[in-house]
């Protein structure tokens, strides 16, 4: 997958929540593992400093359920997974994203067709 380095950070911030929800829908994760999964998905430009607060925000809003798991080294890890409300929220966000893309795609296609005139 193509890396997103150089993409607009605001744009990435907008899709981050949806990405996190999608990844957690597949399986539960702990903080750093989720970071690596986000990066592996191609969003390499997203800083960890954005991901951890986003997880905390989703947890506060009741979209994630957390459980503590003891580890061999150091303090316990916090694993998070989607709650039923989180799953509903993910579907809403997915629909919202798709409808946004449906609106934007024709506009961007229109822009693409006028691109040679602009560059001339």
């Amino acid at each position: 997958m193509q890396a997103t380095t150089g993409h607009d950070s605001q744009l990435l911030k907008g899709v981050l929540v949806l990405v996190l929800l999608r990844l957690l829908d597949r399986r539960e994760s702990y903080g750093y593992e989720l970071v690596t999964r986000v990066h592996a998905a191609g969003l390499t430009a997203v800083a960890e400093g954005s991901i951890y607060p986003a997880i905390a925000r989703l947890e506060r809003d009741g979209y994630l359920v957390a459980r503590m798991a003891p580890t061999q080294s150091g303090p316990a890890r916090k694993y998070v997974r989607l709650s039923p409300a989180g799953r509903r929220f993910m579907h809403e966000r997915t629909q919202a994203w798709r409808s946004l893309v449906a609106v934007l795609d024709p506009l961007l296609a229109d822009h693409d067709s006028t691109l040679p005139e602009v560059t001339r």
Partner: protein
Amino acid sequence: MTGVRTQLTLHRLNRFLIRRNVPYRQRRGILRDLRRNVRDAAESTDEHTALRQLGDIEDMADAYCGAADRRRPRTRTAVIAAMWTLAALVALAVVRIPTFGTIDVFDRYTGATTWHIQLWRLGEMGGDTTSQTLLHATVYSYAYLLFPALAFVVAARPWRLLRNRPSGARSGSRMPSS
């Protein structure tokens, strides 16, 4: 064991969170989780890289601010503050501090052997060297209501509700609906 640089970074983040009025319990949870995550990251890279990948700590504090539930009044803290204030008032009313050392008079110029202050309708305090009393206080019933109530309001910090706007991070993450 967490490294010194990690501790310093967490300390910095904690300071930023305090400035942003994030409650203690939430700060503790944020720092605990982050310490664990930095440790995990450091195991696959190194501590320096793990901390660098966090990005700007102040930006992160701003982002955590949106995740912190600062809108609830701090009722638990407020109740504790009110109880401590009540206990302090009861102690003040009960305890009598005797004179010690070489206190002859309370004012060497006037030679006053007593002192007395009337605190409106809240209570009175005074002392008397003839009865070997440095401080003796009487707390009126109004004070037992007023001061704990005042402590409750101050500790609850209701003015936070006025200052807390919806955070940019939170509104920024909302997807525009079509």
